[in-house]
C-alpha cells in the first residue's frame, strides 16, 4: 500500500493506493498522525486508487478522523467507489463521512 | 386448677422459648462465623496447595526446557559435526531420564550446504536410544511445516506444544519443548534451526491425580486450550476440554472461568456441579507452558466438621432445653403446689370451717412467708369470728332480756277494759304503745275511796332500762301516795320529794294527775311539767289550761297547784304523752297539737276504745313508716253522770 500526499488549496489531499488491510492499516494511521502532528487540520482522502478495504482500514480511518475532529479539523472522502464503497455503506461510514465524487469538490467543502 | 397450670405452662413457654431463641441465635452465628473463617482459611490453604503443586510441575518442565536451551546455546556458539551433534543428543538423553526424546532440526541448508533438510532425533526404546532421521520422516509434510518447528520459528521464542499422545512406545501423553537457535554472525539474526525435547507427562499427571483433598477433592491440570490433562475422571483426560463441559452443562460461569484460566489468571471461585454439589476451586497458571492447575475442595466435606459440631451443639442444646424445662417445672411446682393447697384451704374457710389444717410452710421464700401470713390470718379470723359470735350471743341475750323487760313492764300497766264494769258513772280507756326500746311512759287509775277515782299519765325522761326502772318506782309511789293522800297536788309534791331524795341520776318524769268525783263530776288536777290534756265537751274540744309545776324528781320541795273543772255527763278528758304530739314522719315533721285536735274532732266517739284506736291509727298513718321514737300513751275518761241513788 502506498500513500501520496499533496497540499491542496484548502487542505491536505491524501491519496491511498492499493489495499488498506490489517497489515497496511497501521501505515495509514501513522502517516495521518504525523500530518496531524504537523498541524494539518483539513483533509481530503482520495480513494480513487484504493482497491480494497477491510475493518482494520476502517478502524484506522475512524481513529484518525476522531483525532482530527478533536483538533476541530475536518476530513472528507473523495472518489469512494466499488467494493470500497460497498464496505463503507455496510458499515455506516457513508453517513459519518461526507463523500464527494472529485477531489476538487471535496476541497471546496473542506474549506468552509 | 387452671390458674396454677397456666403459671407453669407460661413459665415453661417463656423460658424455653427465650433460651431456644438465644441458643439458636448463638448457634447460627457460630456456624456462619465458623464457615466464614473456614472459607477464609480455605483460600489460603487452597492457594498453598495449588502453588506447591504448580511449582512441582513447573520445576519438571523448566528442567527440561533448560536442558533444551543448553543444547540450543551450545549449537549457537559453535558449529557441530554430525558425530558431535549426535553425541550431544545422546548424552542429553542419557543425563536426563525425564526426557523421552531429544532432537534438532535445521532450516534449509543451515546444517550442510548440500542437504536441504537435516534433523536428528533420539528417543528411548527398550532401554536404548533410538535414532530417527527427521528428513526421512515425511509424513504429510517435511518437518519444516510441523507445529513444533513452525511455531517457535514464527514466534522467535521457545514453545511448549499442546499435549498429545506420542506414537513411540504406546499411548503416552507427551509434550514437546522446542527452542529456536540462531546464527548471529553477519550482524543480524538468522534462524538456524529448532531444538526439541519431549517429555512424558505420565509422572506429572500421576502426581496430580494422586492428590487427595478431604474425601473427594482433587487436583486437575488443563492445557492452554482448556484440554483436560489430568483429572480423577480418567475418561475425560484428553477427551474433554473445560469448554466442552461448560457447553454440555449450559454453564456460562464455567465458560467464563475457562476463559480466565486460558488467560493465565489465578483465582478462587465457588462453582456448582450438575448434581448440586458446591465446590471451591483455586486455579493457578503454569507459566512455562500456559497450562492451568486447579485444586478442588468440595464444600460439604469442608464444612463437615463444622456441621458435625453444630449438630452436636444443637443436640446438646436441645437436651439442655429439655432438662431446663424439667427444672422449671420442678421449681414452678414448688410454688404452685403450696398455692394450690392454700386455695383449697381458703375455699373451705370461706364456707365457714375455720378449723381446717393449714399447709405448713416448707420453704423460707415468698411462698413460705405467704403460708405463714395465711396461718396468722386464719388464726385471727377464727378469733374474730369467735368474738363476734360471743358478742352477738351476748347482744341477743340482752335483747331478749330487754324484750322480756318490756313485756313485764307493759303487763304492769292495767290493761283490762273496762276495768270497773259495775261503775257506770264513767268510762275509761287507755293504751300504751312502747317504742322499740324499753320506754318510760305509763298511766294508772285507781279508786281512792268509793266515789273518787284517781287517774294519771306520766312520761319518764329518756328511754331504756334506767327509764323503765324509774318508771316502776314512780308508778308505785304515785299509787301508794295517791291512795293515801287523795289530792293531786299533795300526791305530786310528796312523790317528788321521795324521788328527789335518791335522785343521783337526775332522772325526772312529767306527770298529769287528776281525781274525778263520780257523784259530781268534779275533777281536781295537777300537772308536773306534762303537756295539757284535751277536754271534749258536746260543744267543743279544747286544750285544758294548766298551770304546770316543775317536773317530778330533780328538785325537792317543789310546789304544785291544784285546779278544778266540772265535767258534764258526756264530757271526756283526753290525756296523752308527747309520743303522740311528737310522732315524726319520714320528713322529720311532728304530728303536732293541731293535728291531734283535728283528729279528735273527726274521731268516732261512740266509745273510748274506738276513739283511742282512731287516734293511734291516725298517728301511725302520719308516721308513714318512720320508726317510732317514743312511747305513744293515751288515756281517755268520759263522765257519764252520777249513779242513781240506791
Amino acid at each position, binding site marked *: 500500500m502506498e500513500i501520496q500526499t499533496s497540499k491542496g488549496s484548502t487542505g491536505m489531499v491524501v491519496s491511498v493506493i492499493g489495499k488498506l488491510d490489517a497489515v497496511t492499516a497501521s501505515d495509514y494511521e501513522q502517516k495521518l498522525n504525523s500530518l496531524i502532528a504537523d498541524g494539518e487540520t483539513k483533509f481530503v482522502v482520495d480513494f480513487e486508487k484504493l482497491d480494497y478495504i477491510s475493518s482494520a482500514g476502517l478502524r484506522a480511518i475512524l481513529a484518525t478522523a476522531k483525532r482530527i475532529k478533536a483538533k476541530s479539523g475536518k476530513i472528507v472522502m473523495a472518489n469512494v467507489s466499488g467494493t470500497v464503497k460497498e464496505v463503507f455503506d455496510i458499515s455506516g461510514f457513508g453517513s459519518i463521512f461526507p463523500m464527494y465524487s472529485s477531489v476538487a469538490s471535496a476541497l471546496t467543502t473542506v474549506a468552509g | 386448677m387452671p390458674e396454677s397450670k397456666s403459671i407453669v405452662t407460661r413459665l415453661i413457654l417463656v423460658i424455653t422459648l427465650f433460651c431456644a431463641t438465644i441458643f439458636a441465635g448463638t448457634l447460627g452465628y457460630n456456624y456462619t462465623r465458623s464457615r466464614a473463617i473456614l472459607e477464609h482459611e480455605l483460600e489460603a490453604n487452597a492457594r498453598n496447595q495449588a502453588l506447591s503443586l504448580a511449582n512441582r510441575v513447573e520445576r519438571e518442565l523448566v528442567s527440561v526446557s533448560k536442558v533444551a536451551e543448553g543444547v540450543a546455546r551450545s549449537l549457537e556458539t559453535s558449529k557441530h559435526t554430525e558425530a558431535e551433534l549426535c553425541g550431544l543428543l545422546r548424552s542429553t538423553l542419557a543425563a536426563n531420564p525425564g526426557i523421552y526424546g531429544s532432537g534438532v532440526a535445521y532450516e534449509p541448508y543451515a546444517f550442510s550446504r548440500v542437504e536441504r533438510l537435516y534433523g536428528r532425533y533420539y528417543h528411548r526404546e527398550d532401554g536404548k536410544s533410538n535414532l530417527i532421521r527427521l528428513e526421512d520422516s515425511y509424513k504429510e509434510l517435511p518437518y519444516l*511445516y510441523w507445529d513444533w518447528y513452525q511455531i517457535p520459528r514464527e514466534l522467535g521464542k521457545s514453545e511448549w506444544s499442546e499435549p498429545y499422545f506420542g506414537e513411540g512406545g504406546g499411548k503416552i501423553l507427551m509434550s514437546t519443548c522446542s527452542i529456536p537457535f540462531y546464527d548471529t554472525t553477519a550482524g543480524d539474526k538468522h534462524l538456524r534451526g529448532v531444538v526439541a525435547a519431549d517429555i512424558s507427562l505420565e509422572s506429572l499427571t500421576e502426581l496430580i491425580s494422586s492428590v487427595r483433598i478431604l474425601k473427594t477433592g482433587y487436583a486437575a491440570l488443563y492445557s492452554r486450550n482448556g484440554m483436560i490433562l489430568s483429572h480423577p475422571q480418567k475418561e475425560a483426560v484428553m477427551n474433554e*476440554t473445560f469448554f466442552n463441559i461448560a457447553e454440555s452443562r449450559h454453564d456460562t460461569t464455567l465458560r467464563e472461568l475457562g476463559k480466565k484460566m486460558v488467560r493465565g489468571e489465578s483465582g478462587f471461585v465457588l462453582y456448582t456441579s450438575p448434581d448440586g454439589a458446591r465446590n471451591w476451586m483455586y486455579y493457578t497458571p503454569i507459566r512455562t507452558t500456559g497450562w492451568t492447575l486447579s485444586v478442588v475442595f468440595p464444600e460439604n466435606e469442608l464444612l463437615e466438621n463444622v456441621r458435625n459440631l453444630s449438630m452436636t451443639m444443637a443436640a446438646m442444646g436441645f437436651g439442655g432445653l429439655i432438662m431446663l424445662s424439667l427444672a422449671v417445672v420442678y421449681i414452678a411446682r414448688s410454688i404452685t403446689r403450696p398455692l394450690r393447697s392454700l386455695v383449697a384451704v381458703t375455699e373451705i374457710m370461706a364456707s365457714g370451717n375455720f378449723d381446717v389444717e393449714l399447709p405448713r410452710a416448707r420453704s423460707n421464700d415468698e411462698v413460705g412467708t405467704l403460708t405463714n401470713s395465711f396461718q396468722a390470718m386464719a388464726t385471727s379470723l377464727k378469733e374474730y369470728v369467735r368474738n363476734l359470735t360471743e358478742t352477738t350471743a351476748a347482744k341477743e341475750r340482752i335483747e331478749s332480756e330487754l324484750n322480756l323487760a318490756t313485756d313485764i313492764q307493759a303487763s304492769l300497766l292495767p290493761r283490762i277494759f273496762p276495768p270497773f264494769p259495775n261503775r257506770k258513772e264513767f268510762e275509761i280507756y287507755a293504751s300504751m304503745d312502747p317504742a322499740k326500746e324499753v320506754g318510760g311512759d305509763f298511766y294508772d287509775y285507781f279508786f281512792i275511796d268509793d266515789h273518787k277515782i284517781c287517774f294519771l299519765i306520766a312520761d319518764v325522761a329518756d328511754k331504756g332500762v334506767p327509764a323503765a326502772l324509774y318508771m316502776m318506782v314512780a308508778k308505785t309511789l304515785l299509787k301508794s301516795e295517791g291512795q293515801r293522800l287523795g289530792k293531786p297536788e299533795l300526791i305530786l309534791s310528796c312523790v317528788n320529794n321521795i324521788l328527789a331524795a335518791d335522785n343521783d341520776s337526775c332522772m325526772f318524769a312529767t306527770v298529769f294527775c287528776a281525781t274525778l268525783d263520780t257523784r259530781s263530776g268534779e275533777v281536781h288536777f295537777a300537772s308536773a311539767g306534762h303537756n295539757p290534756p284535751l277536754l271534749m265537751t258536746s260543744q267543743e274540744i279544747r286544750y285544758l289550761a294548766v298551770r304546770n309545776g316543775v317536773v317530778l324528781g330533780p328538785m325537792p320541795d317543789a310546789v304544785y297547784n291544784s285546779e278544778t273543772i266540772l265535767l258534764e255527763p258526756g264530757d271526756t278528758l283526753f290525756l296523752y304523752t308527747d309520743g303522740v304530739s311528737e310522732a315524726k314522719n319520714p320528713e322529720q315533721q311532728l304530728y303536732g297539737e293541731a293535728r291531734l285536735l283535728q283528729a279528735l274532732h273527726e274521731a268516732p266517739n261512740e266509745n273510748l276504745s274506738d276513739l283511742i284506736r282512731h287516734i293511734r291509727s291516725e298517728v301511725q298513718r302520719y308516721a308513714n313508716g318512720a320508726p317510732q321514737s317514743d312511747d305513744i300513751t293515751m288515756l281517755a275518761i268520759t263522765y257519764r253522770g252520777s249513779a242513781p241513788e240506791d
Partner: protein
Amino acid sequence: MMAPIRTMTCMARIGKLAEIEQFVDGCAEQSGLDATRMSGLQVAVEEAFVNICNYAYPNTTGRVSITAEAAGEDLVLEISDHGIPFNVLLLPDPDTSQDIHEREVGGLGCYLIRKLTDKASYRRKNGANILTLVMHRSS
C-alpha cells in the same frame, strides 16, 4: 464432476495475511465469482483470519488452515484453527447509526463477515474452531 479442493495452512500471524489473500484470490478466480463479490469474500476472509490471529492462540500461535471447495452452485470456504473455543460470529454488531463521536473503534470484523458473504456458520469439532463461509456463484 467434483471440483478440486484447495487447501492451505499457515501460522496464525498477521504477516501471513498476504498468503491468505493470494489463496482466496486463486479460489475465487477459479470459481468464477464476479469481482465485487470476490472482493467482499476477500474482506470476509481477512476478518476471520485476523480474529484467529488475535484470539485463538493466546500468548502463542498455531496453525490456521483454509479449505476451498466448489459445491454445486456455491463456493464454500472453511477456515479452521485448533485454538481455544472461539466463535467470531458471536461478537456483537456495532451500532452503525452512531455518529463519529459515539462510534466505537472496534467490532466491525464479524459484521462484515456476515454482510459480505451469503452464509456464514461456526462449529467446533475435535478441538478445532471451524468457520464456514458460503458464496453463491450465480446471481
